[in-house]
């Protein structure tokens, strides 16, 4: 394969339409006679719904229909949860609340009207008679009793799960010391730029329902929504048009999606719902939400002997698609990039009167990395050692791969020390440490945080996935030689329209502009799994790769036929098939028998045309030139890296200023460095959000007080320092291109580095750990208390 495009900083082919506002998101798709839906949502976190009076609302101008929980509960199946865990208590999650509302934003009724404004006016006229109930807001307290959400269970504990290998008790006993720390991973809102949105159209004659929805998983959503609606799956066409980000929040099946489809079928008119930002923060899944306790056993030399993580995981009121599975991913990754002989996680999943948690960029792995990295820093602090030294002490060497962890994983490949060393070199680590101690003498507070991480990507082998872990691709060469790729992945900002075209252009020797990547329409694209878990390139890209290899075999046979050569004598280079003279002689290929001598070379475009004209094909050859491949990976991939943050804290105000940010990431082979940089940058920005700013806050009544972007602080450009990015490249053998995935690395690697830097800056005040988001006021209080103590700092 030539590498004309592979590895190049190819600009995204998606961008011109996005930048010019010419892309089509759900709300840009306009159908005649469309009705508009607005949801009435619970204003209470926990309340019995005594009556829902829609009589006034029905009289409002423009109203076509109003549905409440009572109208639809028996007609639409439950919102699905795909996680299968032993003794999991699964609440019956209906599309609209019926007897009880379980969280602020829980949909109670839907108004369908001629326009959004009329629908909203009418929704304001619906009278709900609530009986307020006591609320459960904290996952740890909720596990201990108090009010019960789902009365049929008699408990708020959704499940308990213990996993890990090695004798943890013995490991902690054999340690020189054991340290304990409570660690919080706060609830976050994913805040995709485009909120959710659904447009549904039903053709009663054809009995065909089309749903345009902003999703990461069009095929899985089609299957699940068809089941909810009790209709044949192949009568439901689901289209994910342009999707403006998901971060895991659209790796889901939502009540609104099924309900809109059902309404279109009832009314015979298209119906649209576009989520408001307020609804997006209330009723699109949240991420993280763990209250945990760690126990780390370690030797005096810094060797970690065992790690236990007892965690209360905040499920929210209901399960969405993967809610209870997310903390199990935390369990899988608790070894970090270290050799830890014994690991145990004890998960208690707890129902609370809040929106469900689910996948959010990293999905359980940022939590794990945070736990391990904080643990290593605490060990280093206790021993008075440099955190880098303690990390090195516990890392497996490159020749130990595949490396088996006590969480049951086999890390495919890695050179953790290599990435660490490179990051240390770029940052000038020892020099920065010197500057830090000089600055301390001047009374300045500088802190350095180092995080060495490994993550699990390319999800994943089907055995480990709830609904298939493979990915599909069809590659066609059209009669004119243009290349069409149909991918089962569903990119929504990642740029695979570009990177998959790079793969194809190199493999087929065509211009990248002759390649079109189609995704997201279940009527056009063969079944696929979707885009999440940093899988689209490593799994979906590999499917593209193999489909093209398959297609090239056929193209090779046709080319040989056209050149009247044996297929073993044909070579393919930069889009041209040619008879290799030496091989042709050796194979004793017949010399030109016809009067017109056959061509000595044919292009891939010639072959494509011949395949479609079908006048001159080898015997028993199917016309056409396309191939489909379903790729099943044999393992996950495990990218890794080192992030280093240097911060200075304003002693007077507690404000945090980044002085440096260095990241060395290793995601295996890189197809497009521009896309990889973008992924890492975006991930780090979201990490800055979690470390410093973001937090979904419910007050003690369960009211969502961080319910708008005026209160919920997503980082802005001014909050982001210059990011010094570099890479090491350790290929994987899980796929032929050696690519690992990079979609979540930034959110996994960066958060612990930032927290560690702040903790390090405050270490003169005896600080060993701080919970996120670390606000200036928290720091100011530490400093002003410290200054009251004589001799401190």
């Amino acid at each position, binding site marked *: 394969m030539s590498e004309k495009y592979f590895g190049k900083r190819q600009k995204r082919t998606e961008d011109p339409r996005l930048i010019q506002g010419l892309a089509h998101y759900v709300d840009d798709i306009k159908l005649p006679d469309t009705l508009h839906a*607005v949801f009435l949502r619970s204003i209470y976190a926990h309340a019995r719904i005594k009556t829902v009076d829609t009589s006034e609302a029905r009289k409002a101008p423009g109203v076509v229909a109003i549905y409440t929980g009572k109208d639809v509960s028996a007609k639409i199946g439950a919102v699905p949860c795909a996680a299968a865990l032993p003794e999991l208590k699964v609440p019956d999650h209906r599309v609209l609340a019926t007897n009880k509302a379980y969280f602020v934003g829980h949909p109670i009724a839907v108004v369908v009207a001629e326009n*959004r*404004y009329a629908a*909203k*006016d009418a929704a*304001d006229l619906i009278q709900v008679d609530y009986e307020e109930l006591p609320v459960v807001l904290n996952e740890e307290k909720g596990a201990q009793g108090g009010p019960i959400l789902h009365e049929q269970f008699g408990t708020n504990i959704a499940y308990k799960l213990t996993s890990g290998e090695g004798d943890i008790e013995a490991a902690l006993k054999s340690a020189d010391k054991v340290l304990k720390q409570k660690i919080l991973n706060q609830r976050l809102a994913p805040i995709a730029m485009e909120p959710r949105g659904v447009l549904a159209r039903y053709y009663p004659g054809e009995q065909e329902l089309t749903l345009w929805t902003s999703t990461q998983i069009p095929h899985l959503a089609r299957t699940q929504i068809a089941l909810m609606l009790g209709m044949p799956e192949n009568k439901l066409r689901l289209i994910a048009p342009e999707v403006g980000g998901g971060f895991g929040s659209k790796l889901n099946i939502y009540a609104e999606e099924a309900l809109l489809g059902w309404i279109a079928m009832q009314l015979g008119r298209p119906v649209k719902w576009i989520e*408001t*930002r*307020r609804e997006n923060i209330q009723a699109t899944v949240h991420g993280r939400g763990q209250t945990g306790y760690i126990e780390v056993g370690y030797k005096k030399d810094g060797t970690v002997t065992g790690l236990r993580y007892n965690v209360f995981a905040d499920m929210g009121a209901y399960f969405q698609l993967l809610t209870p599975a997310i903390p199990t991913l935390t369990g899988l990754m608790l070894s970090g990039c270290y050799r830890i002989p014994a690991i145990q996680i004890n998960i208690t999943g707890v129902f609370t009167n809040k929106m469900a948690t689910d996948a959010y960029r990293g999905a359980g792995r940022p939590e794990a990395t945070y736990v391990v990295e904080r643990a290593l820093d605490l060990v280093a602090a206790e021993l008075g050692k440099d955190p880098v030294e303690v990390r090195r002490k516990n890392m497996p060497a490159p020749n130990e791969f595949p490396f088996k962890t006590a969480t049951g994983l086999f890390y495919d490949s890695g050179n953790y020390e290599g990435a660490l060393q490179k990051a240390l070199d770029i940052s000038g680590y020892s020099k920065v440490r010197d500057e830090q101690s000089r600055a301390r003498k001047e009374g300045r507070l500088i802190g350095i945080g180092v995080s060495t991480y490994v993550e699990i990507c390319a999800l994943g082998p089907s055995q480990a996935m709830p609904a298939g872990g493979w990915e599909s691709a069809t590659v066609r060469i059209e009669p004119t030689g243009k290349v069409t790729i149909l991918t089962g992945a569903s990119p929504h900002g990642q740029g695979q329209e570009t990177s998959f075209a790079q793969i194809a252009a190199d493999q087929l020797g065509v211009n990248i502009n002759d390649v079109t990547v189609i995704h997201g329409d279940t009527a056009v694209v063969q079944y696929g799994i979707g885009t999440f878990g940093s899988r689209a390139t490593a799994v979906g890209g590999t499917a593209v790769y193999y489909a093209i290899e398959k297609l090239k075999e056929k193209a090779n046979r046709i080319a040989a036929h056209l050149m009247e050569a044996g297929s073993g004598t044909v070579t393919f280079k930069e889009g041209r098939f040619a008879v290799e003279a030496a091989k042709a002689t050796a194979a004793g290929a017949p010399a030109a028998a016809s009067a017109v001598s056959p061509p000595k070379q044919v292009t891939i475009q010639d072959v494509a045309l011949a395949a479609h004209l079908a006048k001159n094909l080898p015997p028993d050859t199917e016309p056409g030139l396309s191939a489909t491949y379903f790729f099943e990976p044999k393992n996950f991939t495990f990218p890794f890296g080192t992030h280093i943050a240097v911060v200075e804290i304003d002693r*007077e*105000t507690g*404000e945090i200023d980044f002085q440096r940010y260095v990241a060395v990431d290793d995601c295996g082979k890189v197809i497009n460095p521009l896309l990889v940089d973008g992924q890492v940058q975006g991930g780090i920005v979201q990490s800055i959000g979690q470390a*410093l*700013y973001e*937090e979904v*806050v419910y007050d003690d009544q369960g009211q969502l*007080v*961080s319910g*708008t*972007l*005026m*209160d*919920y*602080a*997503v*980082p*802005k450009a001014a*909050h982001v320092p210059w990011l010094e990015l570099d890479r090491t490249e350790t290929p994987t053998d899980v796929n032929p291109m050696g690519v690992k995935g990079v979609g979540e690395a930034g959110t996994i690697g960066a958060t612990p580095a930032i927290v560690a830097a702040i903790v390090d800056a405050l270490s003169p005040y005896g600080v060993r750990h701080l919970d996120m988001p670390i*606000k*200036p*006021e928290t720091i*100011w*209080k530490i400093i002003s208390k410290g200054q009251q103590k004589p001799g401190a700092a």
Partner: protein
Amino acid sequence: MIPNSFDYVAAKNLDEALSLLSKHKDDAKLLAGGHSLIPAMKLRLAQPQILIDISRIKDLSYIREEGGRIRIGAMTTHYQIESSDLLRRACPLLPEAATHLGDVQVRNKGTIGGSLAHADPAADWPAVVLALDAELVIAGKTERVIKADKFFVGLFTTALDQGEILREIRFPAPKGRFGQCYKKFRHPASGFAVVGIAVNLAVDGGGKCESAGVGITGVSPKPYSATGVESALKGSALDGKALTAAAAHAADGVNANTDLFASGEYRKHLAEVYTRRALETAVSRAK
């Protein structure tokens, strides 16, 4: 995100706006740049029946220096202030503060008069007009002039009566040796001031403080003049010690706001630190 239905009328001039306002009374809201009102309407927190758009009245958009006074029309946009050569020379506090306001889009549409009349407790302009000891010219049945420190009454409340329109902001052009500064601690989500400090100092020939104006926003439900700071500065040598001592009065007697991001106690502390820093910068600029 989905407002109630409302009527809209664009007033051609101030008289028409006043007569529309007196006709529709409480049902009406004046629309200037719309950057506070429209978001509130989209959340249905504001539900006016009619919007009277005054942003197109050309006579209300100007920046002039006349007879030792600077006059700014209420519908002058933040960007016009930010980019005004006249103000950069004669009163750089205004352009400096404008750069702290929202983002480019907001500054292109939002107006100083709209912001002042909205009286958001964390908006930037109130601190500035207080520091400049500005007069606000109010059009109504009869025109009246009110000092900035009498204009802000409380949370989103001003001295404007029903039927009145803030027409102009005016203040004496700083003379002689003066130093100004606006410093702000931005809320990470909203970008509004957790604390915002506007300083306007006049320095006499001996380097002593001739007069001081210090306006503070974000700290309490209404922006205020830090009179304790001002009187401590007056006549002082403006050295480090004097500035620190004066700044310690920044939140005297203030009942400070608390939100998810910052407690009242922390806000008061920030007010002191940011006041001292703003004073230091202002003094360094008083050349």
